[in-house]
């Protein structure tokens, strides 16, 4: 019972923590650290939430969640629920809910990953057919379109792509800044950071919290790339490039989807911290947050492994 309670509390704390964390603004001063904390919260929330249900359901086995699950599967194959203790309705319900939630999480993650990979492969193939090299921007694929866009197709061999509209819109310094920003995405594999959060959003599309979290992590990833880029270019040029993109009105939207809500705030927040940077979070605090994230991430798996106290 203690394990189930501990996992349930952990899940609730993660939920509340995530809610409060979406409003935190210190994250802008240390986006990399904040991303680590978001990942820790996500993993722990998933494992603790499902683990709490399973721990309660499998308590009669007195072996902990993981080993209890193994014993349950063995006995289910042998026929009959060979639990050493009494097996009642609430426990069976908890078992069904827990297993369903766990498999939904896993399946959604895998489906989202494979869909993304498929869409990316098609994008890459099309890109190879219709984009071209430009001597002005070596190593970058150019797309013949008047709209403004710059992005990277992540993968083992990531590609940075800009449109002809972008080359026209930006000054050479601004272009350098944008390309530095995109190479940071490539180097730090930000697509892998975003993938699980996008998958979670797909699993729970009605959840306002999950949507908020996804856009928050998206913004932090952009800020992390901004921070990496400013080491190689003028932050002011990066800021003007951002503003130019925001006002470019790139292409007519098919269903009026141009500019998701909050885009303006996100752009302004990034411009603000590029032009008048706040001091970095003190090293001591950054280390403390990373240490906390590591502890949090390891807590749920430990509770899964721990045999129930007698």
């Amino acid at each position, binding site marked *: 019972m203690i394990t189930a309670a501990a996992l349930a509390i952990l899940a609730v704390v993660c939920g509340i923590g995530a809610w409060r964390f979406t409003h935190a603004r210190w994250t802008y001063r240390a986006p990399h650290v904040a991303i680590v904390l978001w990942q820790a919260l996500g993993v722990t929330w998933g494992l603790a939430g499902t683990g709490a249900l399973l721990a309660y359901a499998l308590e009669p086995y007195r072996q902990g969640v993981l080993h209890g699950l193994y014993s349950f599967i063995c006995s289910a194959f042998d026929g009959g629920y060979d639990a050493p203790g009494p097996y009642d309705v609430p426990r069976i319900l908890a078992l069904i809910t827990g297993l369903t939630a766990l498999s939904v999480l896993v399946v959604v993650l895998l489906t989202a990953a494979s*869909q*993304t990979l498929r*869409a*990316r492969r*098609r*994008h890459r*193939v*099309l*890109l*190879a*057919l*219709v*984009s071209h090299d430009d001597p002005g921007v070596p190593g970058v694929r150019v*797309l*013949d*379109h008047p*709209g*403004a*866009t*710059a*992005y*990277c*197709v*992540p993968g083992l061999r990531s590609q940075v*792509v800009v*449109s002809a509209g972008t080359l026209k819109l930006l000054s050479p310094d601004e272009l350098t800044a*944008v390309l530095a*920003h995109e190479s940071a995405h490539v180097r730090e594999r*930000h*697509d892998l950071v*975003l*993938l699980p959060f*996008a998958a979670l959003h797909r699993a729970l599309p009605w959840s306002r919290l999950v949507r908020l979290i996804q856009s928050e992590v998206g913004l932090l990833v*952009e800020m992390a790339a901004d921070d990496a880029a400013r080491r190689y270019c003028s932050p*002011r040029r990066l800021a*003007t490039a*951002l*503003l*130019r*993109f*925001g*006002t*470019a*009105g*790139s*292409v007519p*939207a*098919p*269903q009026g*989807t*141009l*500019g*998701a809500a909050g*885009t*303006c705030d996100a*752009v*302004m927040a*990034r*411009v603000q911290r590029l*032009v008048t940077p706040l001091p970095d979070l003190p090293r001591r605090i950054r280390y403390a947050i990373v240490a906390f994230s590591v502890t949090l991430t390891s807590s749920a798996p430990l509770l899964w492994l721990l045999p129930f106290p007698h």
Partner: protein
Amino acid sequence: MKGLGELERSIMDIIWAQSSPVTAREVGRLIADRDLAPTTVMTVLDRLTRKGFLMRTRSGRAWRYEPAESRDAYVAELMLEALDMTGDRSAALTRFAQAVSGSEAEILLRALSELEDE
């Protein structure tokens, strides 16, 4: 000898530039690389057909090839995906920034002119 991707691109460019379906022999004549073996051209045409970029119809003893979509249609598809406007199907690209609408654009424009004045 150019890479296969390069070859596919130049062959697609040739076919896009034609107003009517072409045969492999005609593609071979139009291609810049004169040393290319006719079988190579045929292989690439076959690959592009299998990938769905070309459609072919029988004409006598040869196949005639035409593009499944215009070049602009593919560029537009990539742009929509790049701007995250395809709805559900997403390649999860990391994009630099997105454009905003009407009144919000004015806020950004003002910020831009302030930055440029300094």
